[in-house]
């Protein structure tokens, strides 16, 4: 089994493992951010370039460093490889550049964006972004489009990660959407606003790292951090029926798939579970959902307080709020 060292942490991994996967096995701060790679989608990754790392030693056999930073999500580990992520200042500077490019034409209208609080781009810009944009030109804008009854496409916020295209290719029975045009006017589109109608099309919402694809049945109902996520399941003939209900009192505001520590869905869910089962009585509720990610979303949830580096003076009020939840 090849052995790789990332920021000084060594691990042996199965043949064919990528640097990003190896970093995830090690865990912690050394895991590069990934905006386009999705382990459940074949051929994903390589586009956004946020996951770049520096390979200072190619392998035991060929110890030469790699001349350029590489996309960790698409580079396989070689035995003896040495990688720098957080320990290389020039790499962090390069990543800052990538984040700046991703945000260059991004509206950052988080206050009115349904994704706020669970947005990977928001997290990324907090961690790596510049305080102020150096871009002084008008940002590009696209019209909002309804793709079918349940999904809203807000292309202006899209980072062209291609995940939704791969979901449509690999999870739905047929693909009616893709990328049209090129360069900085490339856009996700369904030809002539044709709706995405497949039992599994709703999964594009869950894979979208930003607020470009959102659930129309949830739009503007609530800020996500004011809702209570609950694990729930039902007997479903199409999918596993294992979901998260985002509730407020007795109302089920939104149904989504369950996501792991990397923000990836555990299992795809069908549109019936997602869009049509909006009563608590439709579901067997298992209990509160553990939210792992360190983003704003977690701020209101009691389980996460341990992970948040918070001011001790705040501790009490957060504890109290947690108990009230």
């Amino acid at each position, binding site marked *: 089994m090849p052995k790789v060292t990332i920021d000084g942490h060594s691990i042996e991994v199965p043949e064919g493992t990528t640097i990003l996967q190896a970093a995830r096995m090690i865990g912690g701060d050394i895991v590069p951010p990934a905006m386009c790679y999705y382990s459940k989608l074949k051929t994903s*990754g*390589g*586009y*956004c*370039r946020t996951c*770049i790392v520096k390979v200072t030693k190619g392998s035991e056999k060929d110890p030469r460093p790699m*001349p*350029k*930073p590489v*996309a960790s999500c*698409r580079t396989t580990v070689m035995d003896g490889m040495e990688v720098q992520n957080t320990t290389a200042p020039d790499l962090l500077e*390069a990543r800052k*550049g*990538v984040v*700046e*490019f*991703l945000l*260059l*034409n991004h509206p950052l209208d988080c206050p009115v964006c349904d994704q706020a609080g669970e947005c990977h781009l928001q997290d990324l810009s907090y961690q790596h972004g510049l305080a102020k944009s*150096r*871009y*002084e*030109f*008008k*940002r590009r804008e696209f019209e909002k489009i309804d793709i079918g009854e349940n999904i809203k496409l807000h292309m202006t916020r899209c*980072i*062209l990660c*291609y995940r939704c295209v791969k979901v449509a290719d690999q999870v739905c029975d047929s693909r009616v959407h*893709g*990328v049209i*045009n*090129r*360069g*900085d*006017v*490339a856009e996700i589109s369904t030809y002539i606003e044709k709706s995405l109608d497949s039992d599994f099309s709703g999964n594009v919402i869950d894979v979208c790292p930003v607020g470009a694809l959102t659930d129309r049945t949830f739009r503007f109902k609530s800020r996500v951090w004011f809702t209570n996520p609950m694990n729930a399941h039902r007997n479903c003939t199409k999918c596993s029926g294992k979901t998260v209900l985002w509730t407020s009192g007795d109302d089920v505001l939104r149904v989504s798939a369950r996501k792991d520590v990397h923000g990836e869905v555990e299992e795809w869910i069908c549109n019936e579970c997602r869009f049509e089962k909006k009563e608590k009585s439709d579901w067997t509720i298992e209990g509160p959902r553990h939210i792992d990610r360190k983003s704003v979303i977690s701020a209101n949830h009691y389980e996460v307080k341990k992970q948040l580096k918070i001011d001790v003076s705040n501790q009490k009020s957060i504890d109290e709020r947690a108990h009230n939840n």
Partner: protein
Amino acid sequence: MGRKLLTENINVPGIQSLDVYRKHGGYDGLKKALGMSPDAIVEEVKKSGLRGRGGAGFPTGMKWSFLAKPDGVPRHLVCNADESEPGTFKDRYMMERIPHLLIEGMAIGSFALGANTSYIYIRGELLYVFHILQKAIDEAYAAGLLGKNIMGSGFDFDLHVHCGAGAYICGEETALIESLEGKRGNPRIKPPFPAIQGLWQRPTVVNNVESVMAVVPIVKMGGDEYAKIGVGKSTGTKLISACGHINKPGVYEIELGIPVEEFIYSDEYCGGIRNGKDLKAVVAGGSSVPILPKDLILKLANGEPRLMTYESLSDGGFITGTMLGSGGFIVMDEDTSVVKNLYTFSRFYHHESCGQCSPCREGTGWMEKVLHKILDGHGTLEDVDLLWDIQSKIEGKTICPLGEAAAWPVASAIRHFRSEFEEYVKNPSSIKKDNHYYRLNNISPEVA
């Protein structure tokens, strides 16, 4: 006079037709090749030292020997005729004038690689050349030079010419393959390389038009003989498309190794700078390679003459050197504005980015807008630093080399001509002064 291997017969009347081409030794190379073993042909190409003429200069024989040969899986040779790099127009010239040379090269190469079906992918704008090639292919089929059992050799070979839709990015070999498969022309993320999984996931060699054509004289004269022309690892002849402020723009076949100065000033080639003006700068290998000022293009940093070879042109790295690239040789006289020229290049790369990866998608447009701002007379010194910073954040962080192709011209213009940027910024009225062949977009980018 330098030796001519590819253009020897280019001015023979009617050389476009099969009859005349054959009368001048056409398809003798193929005949000879079919009598050799495929491996022996690869060996000759290796010995010749031929390096890819599409831009990167990778040794062709080595590329051929890397081709995977799994049992029962077809292989392909794909000719890259997408030539769209600003300043490069040699492939078009050759295909238009002497189409059978490409077909002969494709047949020899395909036989050497064991490819029974091969493709020429031609740039969409060159529709008229597509028709010329198609006509030549039809002639070759009728004469038994293509199709079943070519020239009675037992080798079956089909050749197709496919027209792109007009995108520079489809010249990148993996984008070309995607496009040929009928998909969106997005470069693939490598590995896997085409030699293992190319067209339809089959082992594939992609070669430039000129590389394929060069195989014909190599087979005819032998690799060793070919390698005698040139200097060091730059062997054989190279087509250079020369343009700009010279007396004799055009496509020239040179023996690699002649001094740059001779190429620019001798009557055999460019014939010197137009209107008795002085030389200011040269972009030596197509728009993406670094621009060099007069003193550095004519001489190396150590004062020795710079030669038209891969090594000599890249001597000094990007600090004092450039690249031979695709052979698009753009000459600028003393009146030329490097900044305005750069703007034109930047506009091109912005327009041609496929948009897959964020640094190129966003960065190319940003650089164009900042340059536009400077040429509009609103630039600041910080904008020059900003341009430098943007290009450095694109370079090396993208999926395909288009990112670098967009970054290098900006970096080199600032490196060698920073004072010109500063002059425009400090003294906007100077922008109007010199005005060679450039057009600002009518619309200024909107400021937020």
